[in-house]
């Protein structure tokens, strides 16, 4: 598969199977993705990994804490909440990414962009190994209890969680707008 084919073939995977994910492989791919990210500064982001049943349960508990304690959440029947929880705890692995907050907007944006570039590279490499991922930035999970649960530091910003697993079937593609339709050319003036 060429790079272009790989980039076009990757899908967000919302439903994975129960095949376990090897932590060693995740670390190896993160290491490689780190080397290929654009803004090249080390220490600008950090990864927390949840791969054991215990860690996964802890993560899902803090992800859904806010929801289950909210007014609406209390109206949700306990069983339904359990089904919802199980959907997440069944996912074999989660990579949580946070970037370092700098003294100014430029540093913040650079670090955040570096983390995002690394994550995309990691997703593509994962796809080459048959791993599917879903990049989760759902606003519902972004609250104090969750940030505390994942150990977000004062000088850090949450970038996203990648839910990771092998899958039986990839969803169909959704067509993209051709770049030509989002393209303007500006010519430099000769002096």
């Amino acid at each position, binding site marked *: 598969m*060429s*790079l*272009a084919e*790989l*980039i*076009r073939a*990757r899908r967000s995977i919302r439903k994975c199977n129960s095949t376990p994910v090897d932590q060693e492989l995740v*670390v190896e*791919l993160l*290491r*490689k993705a780190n*080397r*290929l990210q*654009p*803004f*090249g500064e*080390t*220490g600008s*982001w*950090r*990864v*927390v*990994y949840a791969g*054991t049943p215990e*860690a996964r349960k*802890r993560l899902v508990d803090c992800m859904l804490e806010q929801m289950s304690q909210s007014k609406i959440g209390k109206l949700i029947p306990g069983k339904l909440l359990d089904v919802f929880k199980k959907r997440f705890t069944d996912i074999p692995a989660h990579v949580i990414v946070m970037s370092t907050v700098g003294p100014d*907007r430029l540093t913040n*944006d*650079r670090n*955040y*962009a570096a983390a*995002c570039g690394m*994550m*995309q*590279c990691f*997703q*593509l*490499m994962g796809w*080459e*190994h048959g791993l599917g991922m879903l*990049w989760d*930035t759902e*606003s519902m999970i*972004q609250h104090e209890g969750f940030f505390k649960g994942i*150990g977000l530091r004062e000088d850090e910003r949450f*970038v*996203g969680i990648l839910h990771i697993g092998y899958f039986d079937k990839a969803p169909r593609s959704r067509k*993209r707008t*051709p*770049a030509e339709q*989002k*393209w*303007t*050319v*500006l*010519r*430099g*003036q*000769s*002096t």
Partner: protein
Amino acid sequence: MKLSDLEGDMGGPSEFLDQPVSQDLILELLNHAVWAPNDGLREPWRFIFVDNPYGDIMQGLQEQAPAYLLVLVNAESDQHKQEEDFAAVCCLIQNFRLLAYEQSLGVRCTLHDWMYESSRTEVFGVLNNERIAAVLELGYGANQSKGTTDLPETQLHFELL
């Protein structure tokens, strides 16, 4: 080429050759790169290609390059969506860099303070409801290397929950 086997310096060449960059090639690569994940298929990006054969249009703002690609991101939705949109554009840029590398096209991906100043960005046709996510300096490098340089091992900050 298998991505997992890709090695080498992705930072882009330090100097570009005096060789033009084809618009068609950039469009071709972008049409692959737009397959980046983006929430709700908002496709929150737009591109301004700056053809710079005589090299003065970006003076004082960017380093010299035969061409520049201004990658714009939509900036009209709420803060959470804007963050997701910026992330999507970063993924697109990463795709583009990988594809360019395969074509031996050098890309220096830059973020600078002037990109936040609308008085400077409107000169290039950046609209009110968008902002510059990054400027890519494009060209062929004299020192473009493919897997020959030994990069220092970058540290991975990895912890268990």
